[in-house]
């Protein structure tokens, strides 16, 4: 996750030669007891959760003995922040705090450079005292003007003997932000203690998602800026995105709004997606997820995105809409969606706005391939507005009783049988039912295979090398859908989604 917990951030601060309180993270009351015993001093116990105002919500406790620490930890570990249970607490020495300093580095989008906010009159509640904070420019190399920091400190009530140490700490914070390519790094508060130490008492760090690949040492498993720990579906979606770099696939589950019919959302392009979400929200629906497949995604990626959207319980419909005038060829998306809808024997209505290049072909593929499914599937083009599509969607959902449905994935019987012909492709395997391939069917399959299949002994077989076909999943899914449309569902591209089938 691109957001780090306090204890992870403190490890980085320590590595950057800043003082942090002694302590460790605990996942149980017993662990908290042991940590408190080893510290052998009064401790503070803090929930590890991405939220501000932990103290106000009762997420911070103080303890004088290991026993007290254990019972406090036991209580904190039953807390929930939003929908998410607290899984870890940080147990640390209590500090004899004298002065507090607010230090926050962020990226200034207007100046296109880092900026450091410095408040020398205390950290807690700094949001309410914005006028006491100065903005100091930071170099692209993470350096900043030490004299400016010192002059600010000179105006504070902090003893001057500590100014040099504090200025060093601020400089180290900025350099750390540069090293880990933080989008934001806040130490609030940086404190001075009555015994003359300078310490980072709390911290919040967010790493640039796009730079996570350069920072394996941070142990970030999901480079996504979510407002909650990743859900199982988000983890599955992220793994798909990492395994297939053709186009973009983004999936995030949203907080469920009670009282409104819940729908799965599939956008294309961030701006068009937001606009489409505004339209579907205005039509009275609640959105279960945000999804974006864009930037010329592979057919397999669109297919997998649709499968993940459909795996969300409680959705009564599937609404797809992006910018509406896509530069990418839209028939790819049509094939991917059709494959997912057919496999799941779609039982909730779907409305997909497929406007853009090749939209006529895209809508025809989608509607025709899905014509025999239990629920209606409608495609729309660039001259259909999101609001108009949302209105049709409302009608279809109402007509189907606004009911959620349990859908089971269907795989043809010939898949996995020794009698079937098969070959591997990237991320899956292609199966052909040779027993159903008469001369006409063989010709049909070959005709739709984009030159990848040829005839041998009257049956369709691979006509290119396995290396060459490995990346041709888009062509083969198109072949599968076209054969099915022509009444010969004899070829199937089996694309397992690790974790998804187990989840259901």
């Amino acid at each position, binding site marked *: 996750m691109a957001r780090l917990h306090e204890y992870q951030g403190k490890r980085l601060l320590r590595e950057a030669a800043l003082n942090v309180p002694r302590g460790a993270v605990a996942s149980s009351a017993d662990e908290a007891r042991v940590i408190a015993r080893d510290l052998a001093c009064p401790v503070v116990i803090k929930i590890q959760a991405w939220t501000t105002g932990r103290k106000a919500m009762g997420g911070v406790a103080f303890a004088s003995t290991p026993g007290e620490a254990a019972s406090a930890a036991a209580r904190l570990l039953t807390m929930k922040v939003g929908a998410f249970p607290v899984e870890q607490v940080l147990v640390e020495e209590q500090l004899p705090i004298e002065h507090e300093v607010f230090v926050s580095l962020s*990226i200034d*989008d*207007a100046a*296109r*450079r*880092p900026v450091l906010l410095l408040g020398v009159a205390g950290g807690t509640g700094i*949001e309410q005292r914005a006028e006491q904070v100065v903005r100091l420019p930071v170099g*692209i190399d993470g350096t900043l003007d030490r004299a400016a920091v010192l002059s600010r400190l000179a105006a504070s009530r902090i003893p001057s003997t500590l100014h040099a140490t504090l200025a060093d700490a601020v400089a180290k914070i900025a350099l750390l932000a*540069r090293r880990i*390519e933080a*989008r*934001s790094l806040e130490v609030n508060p940086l404190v001075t203690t009555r015994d003359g130490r300078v310490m980072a008492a709390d911290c919040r760090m967010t790493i*640039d*998602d*796009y*730079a996570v*690949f*350069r920072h394996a040492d941070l142990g970030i498993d999901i480079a*996504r*800026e*979510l*407002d909650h720990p990743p859900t199982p579906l988000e983890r599955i979606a992220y793994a798909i995105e990492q395994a297939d770099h053709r186009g*973009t696939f*983004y999936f*995030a589950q*949203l*907080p469920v709004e009670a009282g409104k019919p819940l729908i799965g959302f599939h956008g*294309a*392009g*961030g*701006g*068009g*997606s*937001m*606009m489409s*979400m*505004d339209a579907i*929200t*205005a039509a009275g629906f609640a*959105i279960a997820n*945000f999804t*974006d497949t*864009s*930037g*010329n995604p592979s057919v397999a990626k669109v297919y997998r995105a649709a499968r993940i959207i459909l795996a969300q319980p409680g959705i009564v419909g599937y609404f797809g809409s*992006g*910018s*509406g*005038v*896509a*530069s*990418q*060829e839209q028939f790819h998306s049509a094939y991917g969606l059709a494959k997912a809808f057919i496999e799941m024997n779609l039982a909730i209505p779907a409305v997909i706005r497929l406007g*853009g*290049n090749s939209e006529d072909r895209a809508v025809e593929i989608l509607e025709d391939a899905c014509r025999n499914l239990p629920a209606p599937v409608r495609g729309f083009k*660039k*001259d259909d*507005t*999101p*609001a108009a599509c949302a209105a049709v969607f409302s009608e279809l959902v109402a007509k189907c009783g606004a009911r959620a449905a349990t859908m089971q994935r269907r795989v043809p019987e010939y898949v996995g049988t020794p009698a079937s012909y098969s070959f591997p492709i990237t991320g899956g395997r292609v199966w052909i039912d040779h027993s159903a391939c008469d001369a006409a069917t063989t010709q049909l399959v070959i005709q739709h295979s984009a030159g990848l299949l040829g005839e041998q002994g009257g049956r369709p077989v691979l006509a290119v090398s396995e290396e060459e076909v490995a990346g041709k999943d888009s062509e083969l899914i198109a072949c599968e859908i076209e054969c099915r449309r022509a009444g010969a569902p004899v070829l199937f591209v089996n694309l397992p989604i690790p974790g998804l089938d187990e989840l259901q």
Partner: protein
Amino acid sequence: MFSVPLWFDFMAIIIDEKKSVIVQGITGREGRARTKLMKEFGTNVVAGCTPGKGGDSVLEIPVYDTVLEACNYAESYMGEAIDISVIFVPAALVKAAAIEAIEAGVKMLLLVPDRVPVWDAMEIYAAAQGNGARFVGPNTLGVLSPGRAVIGMIGGRAQSAREWFKVGHVGIISRSGGMTSSCGYYLGRAGVGLSTLVHVGGDSILGLRIPEVALMFEDDPQTRAIVIFGEIGGSQEEQLAQLIVERKVTKPVIAYIGGAAAKEGTRFSHAGAIIEGGKGTHAGKVKALREAGATVVTAFGDLPAATVEVLRTKDIPLAGRFTTEGTEDTEAQR
């Protein structure tokens, strides 16, 4: 006959058919495909660069190992200085490619790839500032001047781009790639022609942002009104509002801001579209622009009609016609 005014040397912004363009990463899948679009639409693509592929050619365009070699070729054999470099290389290599172009003296870059690290983008910006260069992106679909030229991939196919976008006097600035095309297409369907469409990019650190592009449109004689597709997050729309208040942008502005339904802290694919600490909210942007005097529509579908209304009120012709001498307003559209 045609009515006045008539521009004999009208500009559009950033890209037109006279600009010489190189493509870095021309031999890659995307570079090759988009070069075809650019060439077919009318862009003067003179050379390409891919390290190690010097001596090859793509669509009859010569490929060089370095930007400097491509620049030297253009100057010594074609008598042209390179105006623009369009970059299609993997995200992790964008910084090196951009700085190479900047150091070779190219003054305008288009950074197409997405997922460029934020600190890389800031380094590119610092290098550009130091060398008097500018750039669009990263994470941009590109820039297109109807009837003239395109850089990037707006339209996807030259034929679509010709059908979708008409020539005229409205400049589009969008934070969303897909919505750049959508705005252009829906305005065209309402009879509104365009000077230039600019997708500033979906990231939080951008070379040219909405306020700067608005100032370029302000200086462009062809542009007489500006349409904005804004989004939640960041401060671009608020800064534009400030420019209007200061009378630095005086041409009429018509805007739509996406993301009304988005909740604070949720990020919608673009790194740029995130609301942090109450900054960059939908309501705040709409209020700032309205108070500055811009027209802000709440439904995207109302954007074309609102634009037509503004053009009529200001007596600006809806569309123009591109000729080799300049653009001429068609009488029927007055």
